Each structure stands twice: as C-alpha cells, then as structure tokens.
C-alpha cells in the first residue's frame, strides 16, 4: 500500500487510464473542430484536473504551455466562484490573456464533474480559435483592447442551460462565427467525454473521488523532480538572451538558482513591456515556458502533471516584457515568449551539456484573409511554419520541426482549398542550419500568391519569430540563419517589416509574399564534424560546397564530391577552433 491507501499496481493502472481519458478528449476535439489551428496544427490541449485545481494528466500531444495554464484558470474558478457555487451542469469559459494562455485566440473551456453531490474534478480544454476579432494589422496594435474579443471567466453553461447571451456576444464579435462557436461546442463535448470517462473509472475501481490517486501522482512526480534537481550542483546559473523581433533589440536575463532540491528562476533585468507590436508576454505564458524547458531537460520520462512543478519557483518583475501589465498588447506573445525556452536552456547548458539542445528556429505564423468567391463571405486560413531544431550532443537538429511549440503544418493542398492562394514553394533553405559538429536543423522558405483567375484580393499577415538574431549555437556550434519576411522575393528591412508585414495586400497573381523561418543552431565546433557527414550534407544540398570549405574546412571535389583529405587537413589546421562563421545564405529572390 502507498501512503494514500492505493496499492502501487492500482495506481499504475489508474494513472495510465487517466492519461488515456485525456487522449480521448483530445481525439474527440481534433475530429470535431473546425479550425485548422486545432485539426491540422494541433494548437490545443486537454487535461484532467483534481478538485483543488491541480493537473493530474494531460493528453500526449497536449501543448506544454496549455498544460500549465488550464489548472491556473481552474484555480481562479475555485477562488472566484467558491466551491459551493460550482454545480453539476456548469461549464466555464475564458480567454483573458492574463488568466489563460497569454493571447485571446486561446479559449479555455472547463467542465467540473461530480459524484453524488461532491465536486470530484475538472475536465478542461483550450484551443487556438480561428478568429477573435481585433486588428488584422497586429504590428500597429497598442493595447489589448485593439486585439478583439475578451471573454472574462464566466459560466458558458449554468446547471446544463447554455448561456446563449454569452454565445451571441462571442458570435457577434468574431469574423468567423461558425467556426468559433462550433469549436467552443466541440471543446465542451470533449470535456464531457473526459468527465464521463473519469467517473466510469472511479466506479470501476470503487473509488469515492480522485483524492488518493491525485495525491499519489503529485507526490511521486514531485519526488522525482526533486531528485533530478538535487543531482545538479547548487549554484546560480545565468543567461542573457538578446531578442530582436520587432522595432528594437530587447534582452531576457535569466538567473536560475539551484538550491538543494529546488530551483528559483527570476528574470530581473529583462527589458520592459513594449507599447506597440503585440509582443508582450503574460506571466501565465512565461511560467508555462519555464516549466516546459525544465521538464523536458530534467524529467522527460515522467508523465506531465502539476506535481512535477512544485519544486520550481519562477518569477519575472511586473512590467517587464515577460510579465506585462494590462492592458499591454499581447497577441504575438510567442515571438518573445518562445525565447524563454532558449534562455532557460542556455542557463542549464553550463551544468547539463548532454541534456540540452542548441537554439531552435521558431515558427512563422501566417494568416490569410481573402474575400470568398461570390457571396462576400471571408475565407481564412492560418499557416504555422516550423523552423529548424537545434542540434544536440548526439545528433543533428531535425529540419522544419516546431520547438518549443508543438503545433504542426497545414498541408499545402488543404490550405489551398480553404483560401484562393497558390503556394509557390515550400522547401528547405540550403546552408541555413547552424554549423557544428552536429548541424542545426534547416529552415524553410515559403512563397504565396493569389490563385490565377481569382478576381478578389487577399490580406496576408506574416509574423516571424527568430528574426535578426540567429538562434544560438552551443559549445562552439554556429547559430542558425534568422527568419526573414519577403515581398516579391525580396527580404524586407526592419522598418518595412514593422510597417507592413502584418497586413500585406495581394491584388493580382503576379505579386508574392513569403518568408524564411529561422534555422537551428549547431552543437560543437564545425571543424570537428566528420568529413563524411559534411560530404553527405553537400550531396543532399543541405549545405553548399562553399560552406563545406569555409565553415567546416572540408574540401570536396565540385563534381564528384570526393573528399580531398589532404586539402581538408590543411584547411582545418588554419581554422581557429571555435564557432564557425555562418555560411553564405540563400540569396533573396533566388528561385526555390
């Protein structure tokens, strides 16, 4: 018997079943939702939460940030409504960025469930919705009121009765009401599935509630995290990350103190929140990113739940860009927030070089609004396009895969049937991966134009993360190529991006907009890369012969690609050991 009165075998069985229940919620939502953000890009999450607001289990592919924000929102329900005012048939909804996932397209729906008359737990889901109104041209936005619909934490259902007034307000304030309302219903249905399966489970095992199993899950996970932290030498580990995603460079300053079995992270010295551009991050998002970075590096094998995070204490000073005050504009918060992952990783790299990865190129998110063919309705699609993953001590970074986000791409063919756009290319960018003993993952280039013959126009918003500053290399590895935004094949300047990138108009099929995502950083000095690996990369067109020679010091025959070992040895001898220079990049305007 364990301390909480459940034997270890039953605990294992129940735990796995709870994860399965969360997975089933996730499957239900993916299959019934309307937004491609949910169905193709996986930008959603499903969790089970205990009666005290602590996450017990999440779906396997649930986005890491969301697994942390949903229990936070649930805590607010308990605090504001009080247990006695939470009843059977109630369903809560909210998208307040400060109380949810940091921007309002992410709508949380939370369903409490009961056994007898007693609250047992909550089934919760959050999803990135197709639209929440607000300005399309987000770079010009100055506060959160310009960002559209704000749903305070309210009951969507009260004792089984739908709050039609709330739904009508929502529908009237979004551009794509069918999709948004459909997805809210899909979330509530997924929660219902989760709640019912959870109750069935309790019945099968004759348990009165989730208390004992929840306590065991949390205690065991907490102990495991404490052990992982205790294995690190005590001390303060620091990193300073310069990010340059909008109109000026900013810095994130991370100090991570390992003290016994606990970690204290603060971001004192981080740049202040910004008056424009929607790049401010709320404390909920910041906490989620910190948790994710530490979980993935220190305790990757334990299923995620709130117990894992008890020994971690994180803060960022109010008013800084990682803990923005209302009513800062926040809709593009991931452009800055994604760097938190890198800041934590870089601080950890000092003590855990084998467990971390180099900087990853983040995603570029693109929105297309076009007038639909005849009836004046809007056609719309999101695209999330991945950068390259950072390399690690054992392997090259994977090309075009999302880190630290976990969303996926919309297939080109599905994208094209949803909006009148022709995709001109979607391809790896040669030489983009950060050079290293292990090479960073490659970035991609994508270009879009109007579908020939389409008489209307389209507005394209491109939001890149990983601009201007290359994703970092580690231990002598070079940084990856930063992201770019393209108009007619030409790279936009900083001023042009700030001014135009979030609302570019396409009026005829000859015009194009495009972007290059950022690539992953390398790990270890490039001159330590095996010549045969450099040769293979050159053969595959992942690097050019010029980069092979100048950065890796490997001389290849331009026709046969045979390695000239003598010349290679000579070249490498002349090269300074250390970070390689970034190779020549794919020239703007080059056909791809």
């Amino acid at each position, binding site marked *: 018997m364990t301390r909480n009165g459940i034997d270890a*075998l039953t605990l*294992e069985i129940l735990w796995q079943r709870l994860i399965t229940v969360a997975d089933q919620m996730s499957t*239900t939502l993916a299959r*019934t939702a309307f937004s491609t953000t949910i169905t*193709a890009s996986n930008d959603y999450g499903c969790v089970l939460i205990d009666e005290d607001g602590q996450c017990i289990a999440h779906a396997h592919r649930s986005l890491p940030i969301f697994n942390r924000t949903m229990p936070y929102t649930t805590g607010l329900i308990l605090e504001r409504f009080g247990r006695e005012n939470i009843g059977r048939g109630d369903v809560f909804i909210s998208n307040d960025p400060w109380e949810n996932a940091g921007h309002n397209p992410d709508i949380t729906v939370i369903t409490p469930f009961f056994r007898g008359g007693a609250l047992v737990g909550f089934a919760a889901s959050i999803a990135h919705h197709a639209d929440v109104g607000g300005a399309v041209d987000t770079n010009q936005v100055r506060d959160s009121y310009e960002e559209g619909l704000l749903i305070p934490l309210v009951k969507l259902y009260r004792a089984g009765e739908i709050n039609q007034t709330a739904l009508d307000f929502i529908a009237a304030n979004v551009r794509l009401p069918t999709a948004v309302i459909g997805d809210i219903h899909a979330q509530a249905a997924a929660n219902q599935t989760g709640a019912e399966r959870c109750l069935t489970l309790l019945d099968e095992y004759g348990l009165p509630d989730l208390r004992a199993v929840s306590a065991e899950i949390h205690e065991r996970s907490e102990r495991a995290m404490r052990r992982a932290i205790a294995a690190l030498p005590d001390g303060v580990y620091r990193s300073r990350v310069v990010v340059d995603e909008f109109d000026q460079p900013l810095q994130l300053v991370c100090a991570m103190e390992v003290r016994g079995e606990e970690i204290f992270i603060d971001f004192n010295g981080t740049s202040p929140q910004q008056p424009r551009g929607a790049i401010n991050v709320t404390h909920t998002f910041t906490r989620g990113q910190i948790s994710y970075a530490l979980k993935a590096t220190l305790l990757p094998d334990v299923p995620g739940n709130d117990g894992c995070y008890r020994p971690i204490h994180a803060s960022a000073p109010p008013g800084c860009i990682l803990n923005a005050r209302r009513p800062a504009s926040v809709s593009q918060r991931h452009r800055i927030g994604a760097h938190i992952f890198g800041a934590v990783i870089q601080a950890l790299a000092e003590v855990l070089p084998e467990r971390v990865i180099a900087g990853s190129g983040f995603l570029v998110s693109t929105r297309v609004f076009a007038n639909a063919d005849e009836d004046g309705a809007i056609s719309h699609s999101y695209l999330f396009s991945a950068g390259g993953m950072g390399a690690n001590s054992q392997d090259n970074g994977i090309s*075009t*895969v999302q880190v630290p986000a*976990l969303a996926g791409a919309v297939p080109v063919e599905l994208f094209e049937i949803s909006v009148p756009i022709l995709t001109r290319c979607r391809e790896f960018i040669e030489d983009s991966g950060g050079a290293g003993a292990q090479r960073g993952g490659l970035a*991609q280039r994508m270009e879009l134009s109007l579908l020939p013959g389409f008489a209307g126009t389209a507005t394209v918003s491109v939001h890149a993360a990983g601009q201007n500053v290359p994703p970092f290399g580690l231990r002598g590895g070079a940084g990856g190529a930063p992201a770019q935004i393209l108009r007619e094949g030409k790279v936009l300047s900083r001023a042009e991006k700030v001014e135009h990138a979030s609302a570019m108009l396409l009026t005829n099929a000859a015009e194009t907009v495009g972007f290059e995502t950022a690539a992953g950083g390398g790990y270890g000095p490039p001159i330590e890369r095996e010549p045969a690996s450099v040769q293979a990369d050159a053969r595959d067109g992942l690097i050019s012969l010029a980069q092979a020679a100048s950065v890796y010091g490997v001389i290849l025959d331009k026709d046969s690609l045979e390695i000239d070992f003598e010349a290679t040895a000579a070249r490498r001898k002349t090269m300074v050991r250390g970070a390689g220079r970034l190779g020549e990049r794919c020239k703007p305007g080059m056909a791809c």
Partner: protein
Amino acid sequence: MSYELGFDIGGTFTDFALLNRESGELEIFKALTTADNPEVGALAGLATFLRERGLSHDSLLNVYHGTTLVANTLIEHKGALVGALATAGFRDILEMRSEQRYAIYDLFLQYPPPLSPRYLRRGVRERIDRDGRVLEPVCEKDVLRAVADFKRAGVEAIAIACLHAYRNPQNERRIAEIVGAAWPEIPLSLSSDIAPEIREYERTSTTVANAYTLPLMARYLKTLDDRLAESGFGGNFYLMLSSGSSALAGSARSQPIRLVESGPAAGALAAAYYGGLASHQDLISFDMGGTTAKVALIHEGAPAAASNLEVARVHRFTKGSGYPLQFPTVNILESGAGGGSIAWVDSLGLLKVGPQSAGSDPGPACYGFGGARPTVTDADLILGFLNPDYFLGGAMALDESAAARALEPLARAFDWSIVQTAAAIHQLVNENMAAAARIHILENGRDPRDYAMICFGGAGPVHAAGVAEILGVAEVIVAPGAGVASAIGLLIAPVAFDYSRSYPTMLASADWRAVGDLFEEMEAGGRRMLRAAGIPKEETLIERQVDGRFQGQLHEIQAPLPVDLSAMQEDGFISRFKARYRELYHYVPDHTPIELLTWRVRVSGKRAPVKLARLPEAGADPARAFKGRRRAYFAERGDFAMTPVYDRYRLGAGMTFAGPAIVEERESTIVVRPGMHARADAYGNIHLFRAGAQQEGGE
C-alpha cells in the same frame, strides 16, 4: 478434386493451409522460412506438402499468398534506391512531414530517414490547382535532366507525386510518359495511381514507399508465379492485401505497398470467420505473441478498417514516428505486451511491463537461455498457468526457479512475495491489452460489453479470460492451434480491390454526374480484375462510400452511398450522416453544410463460403480429456488452488467444464478463471463464458 491453398510467409515459419472444397477438411503444415529467398523455402515446402498427400500442383484450384516481406523491407531499410519527382519547389514534402514532434518532452527524438534521399528528390516545373486546372504544363527539360542524374546515381525505381494530382493526374502521366521514353525499363509509381487522396505528405510518402518496395517485390512475385506455373499449377495466384481482400497477383504487382499488413489482415479475417461460426458478428480479436499483442475489431462480421496506417516506426508504439501510408487497411492496434515483455520499475517507483521484450533470444528467464530479466512468461509460469514439462508440447523444459530469481528484485522493490509479484505482472499486462481494445472500441462509439472476444497466439489464451473480465466481455472464443489463423484468413478473403479518389465538393452543389463518372472509372479497374479471376458479373459487388465532414473540419467520417446515384436522396444521406456523427461525437453542428472529399469504392467478388468439417458430438462429460490437477494462482482467491487440467486434443465437441481450469495444448495454454464455464464446439474452438453470461452460440 478441388483444393485451395493458402500460404503465409512469416519471419520464422511459412504456414500452409490446404482446404478440400468438397469435404471442408482443412490441413495445416509448417516449413521454416528461408530468409534470404523466402520463395525457395515456400516452394519446397509446398512441394513436400503436396507429395506427402499424393497430390500435385494441378489439383490446386487457387493459391493465396500472404507475406511480411514488404513490411520487413521497410523496417530493415532494404528497399530500392528511389528517385522522386515533385512539383518544383516542393521536393522536401517527404522530409518536412507534419512539422510536429510526436513526443512533447523528448528533445532527442528521431524520425526514420526519408525513403528517397534528398539528392534524388527533384522538382519539375508544372502545376495543377485545387480545381484540377493545369496552371503550368510539365517542363520536359526538368524531367529529362532528373532522369539523366537518376541513371548515373543507380536509381532503381522512380516515384512521381505532384500537388493536387488526386484531382487531375494529367501532369503526372505526362511526366511518366517522358520518363518512360527516356528510360523504358525503370519502374514508376504515380501518386495519382497509388494514393489519389488529398494531403500531399501522406500521398507522397505512400507513393515513395511503393517505389521503394516495387523492384524487390516484382522479382519475388515473378519468381513465385513462374515456378508455380512450371510445377503445373494452372489456377489463379492471389495476394493478400492489407485491406483484408485478395487480388490477382498480376493486378497487385504494381502496388506492392498494399501488401504491407498482409499477415495481420488475414488474421483478422480468420477472427471474423470463427466468430461467425459461433454466431458472433461483433468481436475483439486478440493475438498475443512473444513481443506484442495485436487487437483488431470485427464489426458486423467484417474487420474494422482504417483508410491509413503508419509503418516502420522509430518507436514502435508511438504514433507519428513512422512512415504514413494512405490506403485501406484492416485496423490493427499493436501494443508492447507479449510473453517476452519485460517487467521493470520506473523512476516513480511504479511497476511497468514492456514495451521492451526479451524476445526469443535470450528469451524469458525460465527458458534457461541466459535471460535474467523478469518477463510475462516467467510470471505465468510461477502462477501455475504454464506447465514446465509441457511447454511446446514438452519440447522445452521451463525452469521455475530461474523465473523466481528473475522476479526477486521486483518483489523486493514492492515488498511483495514472488507470487504476488507474478500476479501483479499478469494483471498489469492484461490491463495494458484491455486499454488498447477499450480505446479502439470507444473511438468507434461502441461499448466493449457488446463484444465477444476471440484469441490467438501463444500467450493469447493464457491472458484472454483476464482481459475479458476487465472489459466486461461475456464470451471468449479460443480458436484452434497457432498458425491456423492467418492461413484460414487467406482462404476466405474475398477477391476485391479498393479504389479511392479525392474530389472535394459541397454536398449541396455536388455534380452527381461527375461523381458517377469518377466511380465508373475507378470501378472499371476492379471489374477487369474480377473478370480475369473468372468471377461472373452477377456476383460482383460494388460498395461505394464517401468521406464527408462539416465544412471547415479536417477530419472526415465515412458514409455509404448508393450505387445508383440518380436515386441519391440527399435528405436521407444527410440524416444518416448526422446520425453516425452523433453516435461518434454526441454533438452535431447542425447548421453547418456538409462537404464531401474522398470517394471510395470496393469492387469484390462473392466467393463460395468455406465450410469446415464438423467434429462429432462427444457428450458433455470431459472426463476423457482430464489430465490431472496442478496448483494455479488466481488473484481473486488470494491463494493457489488445485486446478483441473485438460488435454485440448481430447476435448470433444460439446464437452463442458467449470473454471478454474487449465487446458493444455502444444503451442499454448488456456486459462479458465474461477466462475467461468468452458465448452468445446464442433470446430475445435473452446468457448469461455463469464459468470452469469448466457451459454449461447457455439454452433
């Protein structure tokens, strides 16, 4: 004399089944698989098998073949060097995948290498738009340049996959024409033939995987076909497809990738067949071997199908870590729970079983081949479920003390006795398997309690009763001996082929004439194949379906369509569609229009039902089969009990007995839990009924 022969080439054994069409007698034979040239062992085995029975090749009406060769080629990366042609600007589709990570906390995750390396993936200037319009014709120069490079590089097969080719195959066919003129002997796979469905990554992946296995399979099948003909076989030679149908070897040769789940599909068909003998239309088929357990569902007498699958995963049980393939397949769920699965303690101090397996080398500790880690088989031995002196019919003695030694560290970790530890391992593996089945059933909007279970495999009958109890399944059917399942499946598979084509349209504005033409075009191929197989037109069955969704969704559900589309009642279709949707997801977005995407048709030929010979009734008393008693442990009793043991080979039709009991056979042991009843039927099946369950069916 009219015989039909099925043979299934597995990793270790090649199984043969010979059915006498008139008497219904079925004979089984095994030969060792010759790994390097599997056709050699199979043909030699077949010759021996026939000679021993005084038969010759010309007494065979038809031959049906299943093989793991395609799956192994992908898993072992032993396929052809493939050159891939794509729309210019999109040659990296294959390697960009979905851009998603399949494991959220694993920063060291890996994907399998692309089946066509990047230096052999080329763009060709051409473009089709979403409506199938040609925006840009094929640039001949691009094709010829790529072909010249492919020749130099020693390419063995070419895949062609262009954007929106599911909608209009014209550009792909033009590319094929140009390649064919320049290099007539190179085998080609076109995405518009192989997997004409929307979603470029899955379509390209399927097409490239087909090209990858094509040269090897073409050689192999030709050899088999030629040798069978040389031996005097004059009938039809069929291949078992993943969908659970068989196709003439000649027509399936260009799409070898469809054979990838050949064996499991045959197994699922056999499950459906045996279920049918016992009047069960809804079954959970449960096949537990040494390293994995496979679960398939049978609905209304047919194996549940999926329209896509994933193979050669880096992490065998993790979705997203393999190659996606897009064609109809029997839906098999695999979990890492087999007899050889290893029990261990994780970092949280919890007991885990699998997915790591001791396999057959070194195998479970009790085999005495040097395995020291505790496995499911070790636990089953300690619990008294396995007979140490009658494993594999006594061919291999099991070492109980070695099993106990292997379990000891676990027992210490949990402060359990060795027996309690064994019982925990047994129960946990049962739970794992029940979980796999439960998810599968709930996702289909069904309740596990409405199902019967049928089990196969060496470890299946040891665990089936326990799994059934967890799921609330009332009846378990234990089919006769190992190896029969897939061979029987081959013999009963309908001759059929599945076709699909994406043609997105709103239901309200569907051009039913165009849809009808699309179906006619797809069905023509199927009709040709059935004609070649000698199946008369009136016995041809056409089943049409469409994948539909509410506009804006990305996931589709399948709905049947009438063959006569002029009789299409849109209102009726809509209400059936919504009813199915409600059954699956409980909530219907009522006011959203329905969109139809992919049209599917199965063209199949009726086959004379296989009638197995019945065993004579032997009365209810099992005394004749009683072998004695031995100690066995049942957790619900908390202790060992002297448990009656029966000899399966002496159990006659109609004999019944109560649990707890054990039935021994060469390849397995049937565990009948306390409170259950067992009965042998006239086809050699043993039925287990849970307490309170009706003792129906069986005949």
